[in-house]
């Protein structure tokens, strides 16, 4: 698994909001299920001293860090303040920052990601479902019931499509090491390249599924950067040009980033690309017979 394990202490920013409260409950029920640490502190400015599902809430990240051993965080703060939350956490020294928030202006994300890099921190997202390593840790909003532990890593730009694929994998008896949503925005903290770098050093992970979509060429850059056995699926073959397909980053612009040319480039690199999500499990099995 990558980016954290059972022992990882998690902080939640936006802890007293509807989303924050709901997901602290789910993350901690997963932590109890696997015998992990889970969410140990929350932050909402002005709500210090409260509790959410028994988790103490602080006014600032630094105050929470003083009382707890925190290595990761999950951000549910509204878009206007989320980039600031990323910087506050990077400044306080939180190693892994998962930003769930959607609709953060791109320039705010660029600044926050650059700042976090300067502080030596890792940002996952924004506009992502976070990550889940079955049997170890859940940092984010993924529905834990679909997952099973195993040797396949999954990196995806989307949320529900990832759950669809994970569901198919689990039904086919293929377990996962870490499933990570890197986010649907044009600027994201961890790209396919960065996550594949982490998977490379992970003993548990034997193959990786890249779930991409229209927009940019980060999938190809990722595939080019690694020696790990890969399977890919790219959504948006029917997406018209110059239209944002739900995600801010899912757009074919200036004739670039369309699904067909992405798929062609990936196949040219020798990466098997599924035409439908339901084809993925069989392709992964072929991969294991060939390489592993």
């Amino acid at each position, binding site marked *: 698994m990558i980016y954290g394990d059972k022992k990882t202490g998690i902080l939640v920013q936006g802890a007293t909001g509807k989303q924050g409260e709901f997901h602290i409950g789910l993350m901690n029920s997963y932590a109890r299920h696997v015998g992990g640490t889970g969410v140990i502190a929350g932050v909402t400015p002005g709500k210090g001293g409260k509790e959410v599902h028994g988790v103490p809430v602080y006014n600032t990240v630094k105050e929470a860090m003083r009382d707890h051993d925190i290595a990761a965080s999950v951000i549910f703060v509204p*878009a206007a303040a989320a980039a600031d939350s990323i910087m506050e956490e990077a400044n306080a020294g939180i190693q892994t920052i998962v930003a769930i928030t959607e*609709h953060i*202006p*791109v*320039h705010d*994300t*660029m*600044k926050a*990601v*650059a*700042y976090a890099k*300067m502080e030596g921190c890792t940002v996952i997202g924004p506009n992502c479902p976070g990550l889940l390593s079955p049997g170890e840790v859940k940092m984010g*909003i*993924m*529905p834990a019931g679909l997952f099973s532990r195993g040797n396949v890593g999954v990196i*995806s*730009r*989307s*949320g*529900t*499509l*990832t759950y*669809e694929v994970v*569901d198919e994998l689990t039904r086919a008896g293929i377990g996962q090491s870490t499933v990570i949503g890197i986010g*649907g925005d*044009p*600027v*994201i*903290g961890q*790209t396919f390249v960065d996550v594949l770098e982490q998977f490379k050093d992970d003993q548990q992970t034997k193959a990786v599924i890249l779930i991409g*979509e*229209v*927009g*940019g*060429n*980060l999938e190809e*850059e990722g595939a080019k950067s690694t020696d790990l056995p890969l399977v890919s*699926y790219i*959504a*948006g*073959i*029917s*997406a*018209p040009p*110059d*239209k*944002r*397909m*739900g*995600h*801010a*980053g*899912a757009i074919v612009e*200036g*004739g670039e980033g369309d*699904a067909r040319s992405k798929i062609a480039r990936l196949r040219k690199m020798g990466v098997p690309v599924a*035409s*439908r*999500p*339901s084809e993925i499990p069989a392709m992964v099995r072929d991969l294991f017979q060939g390489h592993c």
Partner: protein
Amino acid sequence: MKLREYEAKNVIKEAGIPVPAGFLIRSADELTPHLDVLGDAFVLKAQVDVGGRGKAGGILMAGKTDGAKIAKDLFGRQIKGLPVKEILAEQRLDIQHEYYLSITVDRSSRQPLILFTEDGGVDIEITAKEHPEAIRKAIANPLMRDIPLFMLRELIGTAPKEIGPIINKLYRIFIEKDALLAEINPLVTTPQGVYAADAKLIVDDNALGRQGFKVNRDLTDREREAEKHGFSYVELNGTIGVIGNGAGLTMSTLDLIEFYGGKAANFLDVGGGAESERVMHAVRLVGSVPSVKVIVVNLLGGITKCDEVARGIIAADIPQKVIVRLAGTNEAEGRALLLEKGYEMLDTMDLVVKRAVEVAA
């Protein structure tokens, strides 16, 4: 959202980048007082929110004597189906050389990317393919207010030194206006100095509010209606309506329709945790599209509860057939509700899409 040419030019003019003398007119009569400044030869440019307007007849040359007549003619035209309500009347420049300058968001480095080439004016994509070495690149640090001087020197090469400050001014616009693209093509030299002959600015849709825009003009009426309900919606031209939760899953559903030989009418992402009322609005919105013969609902419930979805579909009560795939939280309750009302339900996205393609055929 893409700014209109005159809006983009106003922004760059305010930042101190010279632009040709120009006037926005809303009728042919409004041209008369400006004829003296515009001179003997000028350009009339239709300000419509559509690309490729030049080829579609939206840009016309005019002179002092025939200007009013040509303007009247242009106001009477439709450019790619859009009426011409505003025209930018602009002085023609005595161009010596054309350069290309743009700033975009670079996904790989997660930083602003500046592109400059001394072979401007022509199609930049062609230059990029045939002479990639002619395009100079620089990656700026988003935490810095200005581009360092060495970087400007590297970018402009042998081009006139006045261009350096212009690149930095455009960079500040890029940052301050929440731009996804700031482009001057061509940037030209004339005997009178350097001018931005054309300018393009695209503002981040997620920053429209703080940039003072009330609506996103890039959206169609129905797309805007969808936005009010918090849906991501894109209109296409097929017969199968598509509702899903999450952009990736919904896109994948569209692709499956194509895979099985059908044509999607739209893309509608209801988002996470949709309650029955939102689902009802989504189904009604898609049902209101005249070409829609059948609707596929593909929802994978995590936060979304299947019984809420079922109640929404039933409440929408539209004439078209709705075929449903529901999986996840409260699945049994949702299925029971739909079954009671006689809705067709299938277990996987492949099956539900295949069936919809059959029904639409």
